[in-house]
């Protein structure tokens, strides 16, 4: 418990889902979150299992996922499911990338807290994550 | 052997618009294809056009309309031709005419409507196809 009190910033785990090669968006977000005073653990491409394990191990406040390949409908809900299995469903999951509008309600239903499509601004993302982290 | 009579076509520009590039190009193309072409010039009323057709004894009339007045002018033309007993005259048109209107005009007896991008050879072939068969 003490650890939580001295903790300076919000801890965010950022991962790219599956094998998606698009790098730029998640890196830019990583930079921005760090500049906004958060601690960022960036693990690159990972599958849901590794993402959830790292999240628990690193005791993060939020998980940010990036996917531009179209695999989000399979893998993002999988992350939430595995969090639930481990009893750590309080860690919110946020997704960024190429998400068609029709997929958004389905992903929200599956437990994704926030979705950021192409053209989202860093400011919106930072604000959203800060608000989530403060809860 | 009797020499074949040349096809005579009246090209006319009814209504108010002055876009005569298309009709002049067609006029030259028909002439180069061996037809006799009478070009009416601008701003002709349907009455004037039908009178010219009658006087010149043409085989067909081509109307160019880019102003959007085709739905008014064609029906008038067709009615006048009928009145004068010229219903069997070939009438065709060209200009900015949407597909839906094209269909409607054809059911009124307009032979063919040519729109932007038409190859003039298609117009020549069409006219010859209709008139040389007769």
């Amino acid at each position, binding site marked *: 418990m003490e650890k939580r009190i001295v903790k300076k910033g919000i801890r965010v785990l950022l991962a790219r889902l599956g094998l998606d090669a698009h790098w730029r968006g998640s890196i830019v977000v990583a930079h921005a979150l760090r500049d906004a005073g958060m601690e960022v653990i960036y693990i690159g491409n990972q599958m849901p299992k590794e993402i959830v394990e790292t999240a628990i191990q690193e005791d993060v406040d939020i998980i940010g996922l990036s996917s531009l390949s179209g695999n989000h409908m399979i893998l993002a809900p999988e992350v939430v499911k595995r969090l639930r299995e481990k009893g750590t469903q309080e860690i919110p999951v946020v997704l960024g990338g190429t998400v068609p509008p029709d997929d958004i309600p389905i992903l929200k239903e599956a437990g994704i807290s926030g979705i950021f499509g192409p053209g989202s601004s860093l400011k919106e993302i930072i604000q959203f994550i800060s608000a989530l982290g403060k809860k | 052997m009797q020499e074949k009579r040349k096809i005579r076509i009246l090209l006319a520009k009814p209504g108010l618009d002055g876009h005569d590039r298309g*009709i002049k190009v067609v006029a*030259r193309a028909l002439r180069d294809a061996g037809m006799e072409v009478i070009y009416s*010039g601008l701003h002709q009323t349907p009455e004037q056009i039908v009178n010219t057709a009658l006087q010149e004894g043409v085989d067909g009339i081509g109307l160019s309309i880019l102003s959007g007045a085709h739905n008014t002018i064609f029906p008038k033309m067709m009615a006048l031709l009928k009145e004068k007993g010229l219903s069997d005259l070939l009438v065709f048109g060209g200009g900015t005419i949407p597909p839906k209107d094209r269909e409607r005009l054809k059911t009124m007896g307009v032979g063919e409507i040519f729109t932007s991008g038409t190859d003039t050879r298609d117009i020549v072939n069409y006219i010859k196809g209709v008139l040389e068969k007769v």
Partner: protein
Amino acid sequence: MAFGKRSKRQDLDLQSSPMAFKNLSGFVIDPVYGTENIAQLDVERDLGGPGEFPFTRGIHKTMYRGRLWTIRQLGSLGSSGEANMRIRNLLAMGATGVSICLDMPTIMGRDSDDPLCEGEVGSSGGVAIDSIADVRQLMDGIDLDQVSINWVCNAQSCVILAFFVAVAEERGISADKLAGTLQNDILKEYQAQKSYYFPPRSSMRLTVDTIKYCCRHMPRFNPISISGYHLASAGANPIQELAFTLANGFTYVEETIKAGVDVDQFAPRLSFFFKVHNDFFENIAKFRAARRIWARAMKEKYRAKDDRSWLFRVHTQTAGSSLTAQQPENNIIRTTLQALSAVLAGTQSLHTNAFDEAHSIPSARSEKLALRTQQIIAHESGVIHTVDPLGGSYYLESLTNKMEEESYRYFEKIEQLGGVLKGIEKGFFQREIADSAYQYQKDIENKRRIIVGLNEYREDGEEPIEMRETDPTFETRKIAELKAFKSQRNQQRVSARIEQIREVARGDGDFMPLFIEAVKDGLTLGEIIGAMRDVFGEYREEAIF
């Protein structure tokens, strides 16, 4: 230099392409241009700095570093109420100027209730203007002293201007605050566009009348936009467009000087209107040559002293005639490239066509995309960061020189004919243009000129695109409105005004002040034009093709 010889590889040219390496004006293009092609170019004499004589590199010192070009889109639709909505919408989306087109009856100087106009009221995507009431509605809620309005009117310009000034005065805005342009170029009507009523010399008198009025009372307003665009639409190739437009310009200068106005009083308000077609570099060379020729002529021939009199200020529109009805999305690409060439050429104002224009009046969606195209070039491409970025290019400089030379050749020919008005009467321009139009069509049909989706890569069974429908009840409503308007006028004053107009027409007095008063009394466009027609008579050209 031996290089010139080495470059003549005609055998290879023919193998690779069915087209010869020529531009739209028919100039033969060399494989590569180098210093020797512009050996005669004297940078100081022929280029100058931006904003410096002879203005080849641009008429303003800062050009787009100082101010972007005016993004001017078309805001007109059948009724003045609808057009008003569209104008407001365009301004809200970031357009910085609007053009207003008229419907066919207005263009022909007739009111909506004229029997000759049946079926054409609100046609061609233009606004139907009969009376001051229409312009009042059209301008409702628009800041007349802020927005620059381009009135695409010609033979009827004097009446439209009267409506505009009268409406502004009603709203407490004096004429000297109004910005904008009248097209008012009657010469090109006889040469190409063919919307005229009176014999050329009477029409010229009206044009000069409006120029005089604007010089005295409307310092921010361009009384004329000397238009090559329509010459090109009717078929003129770029060199004809350039030469004929400038020749027309010189004619207006001469006629206005003849009417007793000092050249420096009106020349700064003359403006031009060009088309940009498919040939990218030829477009750019055309503008640069135009600036240089105009500046030299104004300074050296017409002895203008004010440096603003030397400036060739130009509005540009992308080529409607280059658009295809087939595969309309392809037109977005053409328009983008044409718009880019206009910007590289240093235009003052630009209109980009909507991609569905070959089919119908632009839909709201296609209109927005056309506007965005300009904004993307302005804000994203970075081409606006320096003035005349292509200046010095061997190819472009050489092409600019060539266009200038060829223009002088045309000027000589026109001179020999006895000037532009004589040339019109002899059908010279009409024939030149018709020749080029026919040549263009033949080039397309035998594939010497390729248009994608039209004579190459054509597809059958295309899905038609959505098109804007015109409202079939509009005509009846408009006629009813006009009837109501007429019934409220003081009929005696109307008749008196008509007689006054006939009187001035018979003499040589000024029209504009009278027109402004007349439209305030409710005279319609058709009545004013009609009154003049009684005196001037009607002009009919011989139907040649």
